[in-house]
């Protein structure tokens, strides 16, 4: 058996100290070791963006990193946003604009949007479209996602 390695990774504010195989993908660590199922895996080769999480504030694809590579980092997943009863403004905007259908790609879009709006709190439609260009969605045609990103910006400014 491969030797396990100790890691200490903070996810959504909780510090997890675990022993993991060096080859364990960060996406599998988050989903299967920690049971945070909101982060999805669509391709496992870094293209679709469903597995996007924030690592020390930067959006990253958790399927192309090993858990051991983020030892000591601070990670945020979709579970760090709102709850079903009280959603985050970005989540509310996605619902209001019908920016999700099957919802599989959605957590990736949400995390990309969190980072994007921090840097650009009042984006134009073109900027919002550019920002989500790296995330794949098969259901929505993206138009409603673009609108949701802009609506989220408005909601967050008003908060």
């Amino acid at each position, binding site marked *: 058996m491969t030797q396990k390695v100790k890691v200490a990774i903070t996810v959504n504010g909780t510090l997890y100290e675990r022993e993991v195989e060096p080859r364990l993908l960060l996406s599998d660590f988050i989903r299967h070791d920690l049971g945070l*199922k909101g982060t999805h895996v*669509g391709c496992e080769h870094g293209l679709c963006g469903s597995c996007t999480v924030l690592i020390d504030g930067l959006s990253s694809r958790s399927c192309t990193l090993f858990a051991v590579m983020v030892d000591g980092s601070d990670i945020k*997943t979709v579970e760090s*946003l709102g709850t079903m009863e009280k959603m985050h403004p970005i989540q509310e905007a996605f619902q209001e604009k*019908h920016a999700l*259908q099957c919802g*599989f790609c959605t957590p990736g879009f949400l995390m990309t949007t969190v980072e994007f709006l921090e840097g650009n709190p009042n984006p134009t*439609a073109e900027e919002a479209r550019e920002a989500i260009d790296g995330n794949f969605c098969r259901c929505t045609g*993206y138009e409603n996602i673009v609108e949701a990103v802009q609506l989220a910006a408005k909601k967050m400014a008003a908060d």
Partner: protein
Amino acid sequence: MTESTISKSYKRNEDPRLLTGNGNYIDDIEIPGMLHVAIKRSDYAHAKINKIDTEEAKKMPGVVAVYTAEDLGDYWRPGPLQVPPPTVIKGSIFHARPLECIAKNKIRFSGEPVAVVVAESRYIAEDALDYIYLDIEPLEYVGDLEKSLDPGAPLIHEDLESNLSADVRQEVGSWEKAVAEADLVVKKRIVTKHVAGGAIENRGIVIQWDDSFKVLNVWATTQGPVPMRNSIAKYLGLMENQVRVMNPDIGGGFGPKIMSSQIDDVVIPWIAMKLKKPIKWVEDRRENFLGTTSERDQVHYAEIALKKDGTILGVKDEFYHNTGAYNPYGMTVPLNTQTHVISNYNIPNYFTRIIMVFTNQMVVTPVRGAGRSHGIFVMERLLDAAAKELGMDPIEIRRKNILPPESMPFRTGVIGQDFVESVLDSGDYPGALEKTLEAIEYEKFKKEIQPKLRAEGKHKGIGVIMFTEGTAVGPYEGAKVMVGVTGKVNVVCAYSNQGQGHYTTFAQVAANQLGVDIKDIEVVIGDTGQWQWGVGAFASRGMTLVGTAIHNAAVKVREKALNLASKILETPKEELELADGVVRIADLPEKFISLGELAMRANPTRGTVEEGMEPGLEAASYYGPPHGATGYGCLGLILDVDPETAKVKIERLVIADDCGTNINPMIVDGQIHGGLQMGIGEAFYENLVYDDYGQLVTASFMDYLFPQATDMPAKFEIKHIVTPSPLNPLGIKGIGEAGAICVPACFMQALEDAFEGMDLDITDSFMSPGKLYHYVQKAKGA
């Protein structure tokens, strides 16, 4: 009566769950002690299997078992066919060769499963795949649709005389007569290309055999839970109620998830019963590209016969259809092509022939659009070619031949995928055309804008095409509506939801009869433990068929509630109303009884009941239409092309569409958006490519170009027309495929227009940027 809940854009009930990471998709299911499966797939496209050596793999720590076809013993058998042969069409030939699930003596496509590893973790299972050795003899690969029938071509199924899979001919009127009367006959060889379903979630299955209760729990990403339940039961010799197939949340379907009788639902349940352990298999993206089904490969030899004035006299279309290595899904796709070639125009004479061939490629089953886009592509390209020959404007030739509203319902005389004659039920086709022309300002673009741009050397083109979308086909669907003792309502069906919004739209239909808040309606979809019958999510039929069944059931429940309340409130039921979760006297609203209380009383526990009484505030209903409802529309595109880089910007996209009553207009628009995205992908980005040895060279998102946000126009401009379908009480038609089927035909027309005078003459449904560059260079004579 309270306010209607139909035709309103309610926010979706399911969204808070999906948005907060509380969805439950297949890979989210964990069962203690669960084992994991990885599938060994063939790297060869065509080969004879001598031996598969699994000894080393079996010895690896953490590996529980490895199975090949040999290890399955008597359990191994091909099939069944998921869709029956088209025997209703006279003279049709169909050689049924259902999927083998796991190859036994022969490999017929690259990616075909040859062994299954079960291990303690997915990582270990995948490691073990490298220690399975195949002793095989490679055979010559067959990939070319037309050459596959050459005498001497290697046989994919040796027990057949050739690689012919099916031959189906249909004729309405007489093509010969049309040619005899014609002033002009235009012929084209037209090709439609191979694309993937491309759901972001791959397929998967989780199986749990409960050995004490003898129940098999199955969670699967299938679009057809009931057929899958039945096929698993038959394979394993169980009764239907011993197999419970459940849909978790599904991350998109788009067709390929309808296909069952594959390794996941045939072999994995057998292993789970044998090992008495829960098992999970989730496909990875490479497997999805290689082994999951896909669609669109056809080669058409099409002809159109016309009068000088552009009147169509007839169409002839003989086409090759690639079914891949097997034909488990029957003729659904090419039959859809046959019906959609002629469904917008008056075509008195039509001859059509499907030549379906086996190739050493992945199996072909429907992908959103399912044969429709090919038919539309063929007809619209023929019309463009004819218009050019006749010196007519492409719009004029369409106006001349389009079916008028008075012709509805229009019987086409052609048998469709549902094995009944395709009938266009309703609509104003010319209205859709004119609406689009007006919105996209066709005249102005042609007369004012384009000449100026051309003078400046710019290449901007416009395209406008018509389409129909055969939807909502039978045979049937069903559902049950039940008011619970809390007053909340339950709607249950065994349909399948992959993002279409049924948790909301089905609730809207039930709420409309029962006067409850749609948030108080819980919809259960895809659970054969709660509802036993149905067919599946395909052909844009959910809202129409299940929606109508729910409507009919809710009407019965409403009646039941009124009858019971009338007795309790001692008031004639005509004076009662359902609103706010109660039945009350309309003129005396303080006199009421809650639906929850009625539900409690609907199950009497003492005394006697009247004959024929049915307990519970519940009712079930089934609905099956005589034939499908047909949506239709018109698409307009303005494309701005840079001839040097072949970059295409979609400057405008206008679509007029009629899908009858929109239960939830927001969701309808969402369906159109998603479809258009796939259509744009099909026209300009997506293509599954096999090399000369049958290797799929586009088996990742690095090679298969997935349409992204900046590839879309800034706005999808949607114009609605609402002609309620006369076939069902709510007037619904389907909408799932409209956007996906109309883009390539329009895109190519607009490209040709952008380079007018250069005669691009595009006959292929896929034009990549690279190909466009070469076309333009060639046309320029460079």
